[in-house]
């Protein structure tokens, strides 16, 4: 019985890896079997080798790190700016209704369309990349925070009011907490958007490092294993950030969904 359970648990653990294994196998089949031009599709082994040697001997680790720094800096700026704005907008329905359209409009505008504008304002340096990424992330955080604050259930706020809490304290002790799950939704989307924008910016806004620049360089010199390795690194970064957020959310919104 217990042996059966243990086996079950191992199977459960391994389950998510099955899909990945199948994918790698198909990839291997396609490249070994010459189903796809080997110039376009190197074998998994070659790509993995490029990844490992890039990390250990090459500059992959440095590019990886540059991208992480840009993403987290823009994300941090976005949070510092967006959360207070979101709380402010959401705490008054009138205010929110009057800016809702503008927020929604900019939120729906592809951030890449704003690159030229930010280049004009910030120049072709680090600032432009970070500013666009922060802007894109901030909009979605503002939107979600404001939404969370505005739609926070009212009963706990009433409870605080009847206990004699002044308005500011109702906001800080209840409303903000109440909106935290929604704010986290915004932050999780925000960091993904920041990463997307940073990678694109590294590709097209004169950059000398970062994963985006690495991917586009590999493509230009047709170093396909290198390109797949960099794409994989970008994917791992995105996945890692998402995972980090799930952990943070469990920690800080421990009551969520209960």
């Amino acid at each position, binding site marked *: 019985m217990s042996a059966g359970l243990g086996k079950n648990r191992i199977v459960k653990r391994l389950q998510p890896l099955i899909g990945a294994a199948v994918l790698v196998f198909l990839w291997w089949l396609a490249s070994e079997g010459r189903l796809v031009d080997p110039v376009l599709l190197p074998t998994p082994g070659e790509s993995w080798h490029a990844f490992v040697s890039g990390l250990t001997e090459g500059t992959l680790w440095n590019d990886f790190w540059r991208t992480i720094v840009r993403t987290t800096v823009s994300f941090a700026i976005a949070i510092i700016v967006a959360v207070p704005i979101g709380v402010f907008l959401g705490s008054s329905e009138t205010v929110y209704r009057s800016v809702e359209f503008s927020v929604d409009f900019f939120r729906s505008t592809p951030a890449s369309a704003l690159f030229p504008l930010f280049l004009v304002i910030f120049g072709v340096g680090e600032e432009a990349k970070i500013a666009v990424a922060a802007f894109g992330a901030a909009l979605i955080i503002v939107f979600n925070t404001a939404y969370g604050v505005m739609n926070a259930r009212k009963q706990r706020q009433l409870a605080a009011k009847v206990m004699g*809490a002044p308005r500011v304290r109702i906001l800080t002790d209840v409303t903000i907490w109440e909106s935290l799950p929604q704010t986290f939704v915004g932050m999780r989307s925000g960091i993904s958007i920041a990463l997307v924008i940073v990678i694109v910016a590294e590709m097209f806004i004169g950059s000398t490092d970062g994963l985006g620049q690495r991917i586009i360089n590999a493509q230009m010199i047709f170093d396909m294993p290198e390109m797949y390795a960099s794409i994989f690194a970008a994917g791992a970064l995105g996945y890692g950030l998402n995972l980090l957020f799930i952990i943070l959310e469990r920690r800080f919104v421990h009551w969520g969904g209960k």
Partner: protein
Amino acid sequence: MNEVLARVPIDPSTMAETPAALDASPESDPDRLRWFPKGTHITIRGLTKTFDDVVLYKDFDLDIPKGKVVSVFGPNGCGKSTLINMISGILEFDSGQILFDGKTARETRIGYVFQNYREAVFPWSRAIDNIRYPLQFLGLSKAERDARVEELLTSFDVKIDLNRYPYELSGGQQQLVSIMRALVVDPEVLFLDEPFSALDYEMTLFLRDRLQKVLTEREVTTLLVSHDLDEAVTLADEILLLTKKPTQVAERLQFNASRPRTPETTLTDEFIAVKSRSLEIFQREVRK
């Protein structure tokens, strides 16, 4: 402040004896309701409340006695919750005046226990921090605050681990936390809106018992909304029966059985008499 005092006397004992006020004809004298019986705590005058063109309360007057438990009973949707929400200051009203010994709700220490405890406690705080929460608005020293909590925990004789988060507690335990949070400030007035309706019978008996004990000890003015007539009568010094909307007072019945009241109280003649009379009035009002 002076203006408030001028409109309604702060000392009911002097006012109650004022002959002029007693003689005033109900229709002509706008000040007719400045009079209220001795021992009144809450005065409600000319209360009007409309929801989307539906008139729920119109020129509603009521005096609530000090230090007594008043059970509010009436047809479903007649406005029991609305009434206590307006009195406690949670809900705005269209016109009228509600005063607690001449003070507003904001100037009064109020405890409120919601029916839906899940959405009343703060799930991001531990149970003990939930209980402590309202104390910070009273301007007490840390030692005094701790003493208050300690005293309350003793009179409730709680066996649960208060370092847990509310979602780790059972429904009854959460409502216990929310009742203690309401009582820790030593409220002048306590409001309970169907506080036990979502709990099992055993928990209900336990909480009623503890609540009664504290209320009798401290003589807190209490308004209890209940849809369970047995419960309404068992806990009450007075049963306030309401009509269908537009809501008026149908009847006020006294129930003077000695405390503490137990499930056995419901077997006494006095209880049965008051309950039958309540039921009679209730049915008359529902059929109207």
